[in-house]
């Protein structure tokens, strides 16, 4: 779990190929911790301020996780099953990691128009009082563009 994250530079769309929309998809986002905001920045310089927000030129948007916080059952109640029987028709475990889709069209367009070909994604994780919270975990992220 991390309270901030900086990705390797992501390849931006080719300026010759116009797009109508761009989404950042965060896959397998954990929601077993408390509730939090993830502020996402695209193309920020290294050393992004901890309290950077919407006024920052690299700010692309936020997504929010309604976190589970802690288990109120007995031992094992909140363990996500690793193996699922193909005939198990119950709904998925409530702590299965999820997808977070953030539309970042304007931010991507700004970078492409400025001639950038790659840009890192920064994520700052803030708890309910705006405090840094080590709660972010996901498997990978992808920039998706749509014509």
């Amino acid at each position, binding site marked *: 779990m991390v309270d901030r994250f900086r990705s390797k530079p992501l390849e931006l769309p080719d300026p010759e190929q116009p797009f109508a929309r761009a989404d950042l998809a965060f896959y397998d*986002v954990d*929601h077993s911790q*408390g*509730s*939090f*905001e993830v502020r996402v920045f695209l193309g920020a310089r290294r050393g992004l301020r901890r309290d950077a*927000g*919407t006024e920052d030129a690299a700010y692309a948007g*936020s*997504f*929010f*996780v*309604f*976190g*589970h*916080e*802690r288990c*109120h*059952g007995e031992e094992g*109640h909140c363990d996500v099953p690793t193996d699922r029987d193909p005939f198990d028709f119950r*709904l*998925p475990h*409530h702590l*299965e*990691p*999820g*997808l*977070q*889709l*953030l*539309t970042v069209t304007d931010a991507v367009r700004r970078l492409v128009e400025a001639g950038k070909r790659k840009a890192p994604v920064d994520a700052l994780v*803030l*708890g*309910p*009082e*705006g405090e840094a919270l080590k709660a972010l975990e996901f498997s990978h992220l992808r920039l998706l563009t749509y014509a």
Partner: protein
Amino acid sequence: MTVAPTSARRAPVRVRHRRDASRLSKGQLAELRQAVSRAQKIGDDRGYQYWAGVHGLPLPRYCQHTSPLFLPWHRAYLYFFEKALQDQVPGVTVPWWDWTSRHGQGLPPAYGRAKTPNGKPNPLASSPIQPAGRREASEKRTWRRRRGSPAPFPLPSVDRVRETLANRDYFTFQNQLESIHNGIHVWVGGTMGDPWTAAYDPVFWAHHCMVDRLWYLWQLDNPGARLPEAYLDLALPPFEMTVRETLEVTALGYDYAAGTAAVPGPSRG
């Protein structure tokens, strides 16, 4: 609005309207308070504590989050809760909190003020939490981020919601709407910030009514768009309802109105 009769032997029925929580008439607000207050005093499965507990504590936890069933499950939840309120005060409906407007006021005054105009405790401002619903034994009532303490981020803008409503794919729309919804839970904070206890806070219902309304608006813009067929006959436990049965709000007996006004007609002699 009227809908077709539910049986060939019955006349068309009028649906009830859910309204903006900041635009309720004095009478509408008084009835809502009366319904919630009465429900809060009932200790069995007709009462407020029972319905609040369905979401999280006490176990089992039924709520659907980060799930394909997020919107249908919460629509069913609101429906059954509203029915429980209507058992107390016939005709009352859950209002929505439009968190895209009046950002300066924060919570709608109907939910934010601790007392009613006549000085009584406001049942929409807080609620007791049953012992089995508490995260800590000392958490006997709902609580929120202190009034006046700075919010960690602004409430969602109209543009953000428009952008979400512009999605044409159901799951993309739901995913982004759920994220906005998550932010409101965090923004209110306290009991609302945790899925185990969120539904004990009376503003939970107004918040989810807004979420449900946005799904309804999206449905109006995207006729026929819905979850894939494979999901439609899934049950939404603990409710006696399937996903398919949640798809049309007027079939559930309600509609959303920006405002309503009525005058009596000539009596039928």
